[in-house]
C-alpha cells in the first residue's frame, strides 16, 4: 500500500460518488418536494442507458446517444408522473412503495420485450477511450475522469438553478412548505411534473454515462437505487447540497472500504479470515456510516425541512 494507490482509490471513490449524485439529486427533489417515494427512479436510469446504447449503435456517436437519453428519460419520467404517480401524492408511503415497485416490474418487462433478455453492447467513445497519468505511474481511465467533470458541472448547474432562478426559488419553497406555495397561487401540479422531469433526465444522464462502464441490462438500476436511498437519507431528504455531500461520502467510504479493509484486517488475522471479514465489513461500511450519521443528526446532514 502506498500514497499513490490511496490517491487513485480516492479518485475512484469520487467517480462513484458523482454517479450516485446524479441519481440522488433527482430522487431527493422528488422525495423532498412531492413527499413521494419513487422506487422506479432506477428504471429511468435503465431507460437512459438502453436508449443511449441503441442510439449510439445506430448513429455511431456517443454524444448523440447521450443527447437522446436525456429527453427519453425525462419524457418517460413525466409520462409516469402524469399517468401513475399523480394520484399517489395524497396516499401513504407504503402505497407509493407498492405502486412504484410495480413500475419497476413493468419497466423491466417492457425493456425485456423491446431489447431482449441479454445485456447489450455500449463502448466508450473513441476520444475518451485512453488513459491519462494524472497520478504518476497509475494511468487512470479518461472516461472516468470525464464522468467526474460532468458530475461537477451538473452540481454547479443545479446550484445556480436552485439558488439563482425563479424555478429554483419555487423548488426551495416547495421543499420547505408545500401547502403554502399552493396557497400563494403557484401551479403546483406543473411544478411537480417539471421537477419529476428534471430528476428523470438526471437519472437518464447517469444511465447513459454508466452504459460504457457497466453492463447495460434489465434490472441494472436496482442495485444502485439502494445506494442512492442511503445517499439521500445521509444528506437529508430534499437537499441538493445534502445529496452531493452524501454521494461523495458514500462513494469514498464504499471504495476505500473495499480497497483497504481486507489489507487492514490482514495485519491482525490470517489471510483467509481477513479477506472474508474485510470483504463483509466493506460491504456493510456505508450502512454503518448511515447509522452513525443518523445517530448524530437524525434528519441527515442538511435537512431541507425546517
Amino acid at each position, binding site marked *: 500500500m502506498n500514497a499513490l494507490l490511496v490517491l487513485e482509490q480516492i479518485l475512484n471513490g469520487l467517480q462513484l460518488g458523482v454517479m450516485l449524485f446524479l441519481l440522488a439529486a433527482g430522487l431527493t427533489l422528488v422525495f423532498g418536494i412531492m413527499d413521494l417515494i419513487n422506487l422506479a427512479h432506477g428504471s429511468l436510469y435503465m431507460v437512459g442507458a438502453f436508449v443511449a446504447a441503441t442510439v449510439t449503435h445506430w448513429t455511431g456517436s456517443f454524444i448523440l446517444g447521450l443527447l437522446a437519453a436525456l429527453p427519453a428519460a425525462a419524457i418517460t419520467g413525466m409520462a409516469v408522473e402524469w399517468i401513475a404517480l399523480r394520484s399517489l401524492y395524497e396516499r401513504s408511503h407504503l402505497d407509493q412503495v407498492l405502486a412504484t415497485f410495480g413500475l419497476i416490474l413493468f419497466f423491466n418487462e417492457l425493456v425485456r420485450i423491446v431489447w431482449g433478455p*441479454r445485456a447489450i453492447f455500449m463502448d466508450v467513445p473513441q476520444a475518451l477511450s485512453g*488513459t491519462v497519468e494524472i497520478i504518476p505511474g497509475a494511468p487512470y*481511465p479518461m472516461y472516468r475522469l470525464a464522468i467526474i467533470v460532468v458530475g461537477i458541472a451538473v452540481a454547479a448547474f443545479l446550484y445556480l438553478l436552485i439558488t439563482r432562478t425563479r424555478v429554483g426559488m419555487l423548488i426551495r419553497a416547495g421543499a420547505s412548505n408545500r401547502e403554502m406555495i399552493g396557497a400563494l397561487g403557484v401551479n403546483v401540479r406543473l411544478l411537480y411534473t417539471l421537477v419529476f422531469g428534471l430528476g428523470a433526465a438526471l437519472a437518464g444522464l447517469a444511465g447513459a454515462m454508466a452504459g460504457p462502464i457497466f453492463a447495460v441490462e434489465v434490472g441494472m438500476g436496482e442495485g444502485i437505487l439502494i445506494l442512492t436511498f442511503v445517499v439521500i437519507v445521509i444528506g437529508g431528504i430534499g437537499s441538493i447540497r445534502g445529496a452531493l455531500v452524501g454521494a461523495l461520502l458514500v462513494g469514498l467510504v464504499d471504495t476505500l472500504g473495499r480497497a483497504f479493509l481486507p489489507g487492514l484486517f490482514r495485519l491482525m488475522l490470517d489471510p483467509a479470515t481477513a479477506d472474508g471479514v474485510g470483504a463483509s465489513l466493506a460491504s456493510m461500511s456505508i450502512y454503518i456510516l448511515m447509522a452513525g450519521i443518523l445517530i448524530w443528526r437524525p434528519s441527515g446532514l442538511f435537512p431541507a425541512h425546517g
Partner: protein
Amino acid sequence: MCRKLRFILTIAAAAGVGFTAPALADGIKVGMITTLSGGGSSLGIDIRDGFELALKQGGGKLGGVPVQLIVSDDARKPEVAKQIADRMIKSDKVDIMTGIVWSNLAMAVVPGVTRGGTFYISPNAGPSALAGKMCNENYFNVAWQNDNLHEAMGQHVSDKGFKNVYILAPNYPAGKDALAGFKRFYKGGLAGEVYTKLGQKDYAAEISALRAANPDAVFFFLPGGMGINFLKQYAQAGLNDEIPLFGPAFSFDETILGPVGDAAVGVYNSSQWNADIENAANRAFVADFIAEHGRRPSLYASQGYDAARLIGSALAAVKGDMSNKSAFRLALTKADFESVRGNFRFGANHHPIQDIYIRQVYRNEQGELTNKIVGKVFSDHQDAYAKDCIM
C-alpha cells in the same frame, strides 16, 4: 423507513414471482427454480431455454413421457428460492426439481428438497458441500462440481509458466470453491486473492489494487453481469495489453461476450462444453437452439438441455413410472443419453466425470463473438470431494 422498505420489497418480490405455467392434466411434473430477473438473469434464461428446447424436440415429452414444466423466478434471492421450493413441493407436488443457478441458493434449497425425497437435478450450481459430506442419493449434478473448470484453468496457467497470479471471485460458496479449485492445480505464487461482493458492478477499486500488485496474469471468476462489468472496466484501465486475463467459461460465455465487445478477443477460458464439439447430439442442439432463439447457446443452455435429456433417459428406463424411486434413481446414475459434451458419466457422488477443454474467444464468420476449443486439459476429470461422500 429503510427496514419497512425492504420488507415491502421482499413481499412484493415474492408476489411478483408467483406466476406459473398453466396446468396440464397429467404427466411428470418438473419444477424449475431459476434466475430470470436482475443481473444474473442471462444464466437462468439460457438454462430454461435449453431445457425447454429438449422438451419441445420431444413434443412435450421427455423420454416419451409427458412432462409438465413449472418455471419460477428466484431473482437470485435465497429466501425467495426457498419459498418457491416449498410451494412446488407442497401444492404443485412436483416429482423432480431443477434450475438453480447460484450456489448460495442451492445450499438454501437443495438439502431440504432431497431429504424430503424429491429428486433434484442441478443444471449449474455444484457447491463442494453437496459433492462431499452433504451429498444425497436424490441429488444429481449434470453440469460440474464448482471447482472443476477452475481446476483446469489452474493447470493451464501453470503449464503456461505464470508464476505470480492475481485471483478474484465473488464472496459466496461458488466463489470460494472457484479459488480453491484454481489453487489446487496452480503451482506458482499469488500476487493477491480478492473476494468481491456478489452482484458488484464497479470494480475500479479492485482494478487499481490489482495494478499496484503487479501480477504476471489475472484469473477471475465473475459470471453474468459481473463479468461484463469487470471486463469493460479492465479494458478501460488499459490493462488488456499489459496483464493477460484467464478465467472459467463463466467469465466468457456468449451472454457476456456480446456486450463486452472486442475487449475479450483472444482470451483463454476453460469449459466442459462448446458449440464446436463434434457429435450428433451437439450439432442438433446448437442448430435448433439458434433456429429457435436467434442467438448462440451458452454453456448454461447446454447444461439445461442435458438436464432435460438426463431426466428423459431415466423416465424412458422406468417407462414414466416414478412410484419406484430406487429404480428411477438407478436409471439416473447410468446417465444413458448422448450428452452434448460427448464424454460424460456420473461418479459415485452423482457428479460428472468428464473432459475439460481450453477455449479461446474469437469473432466468427458472422461477426459474432464466441469460443472455439484449442486444447484439452483434463480427461475423465472427477471432483476432489467424491471421497467424502457417503450415501
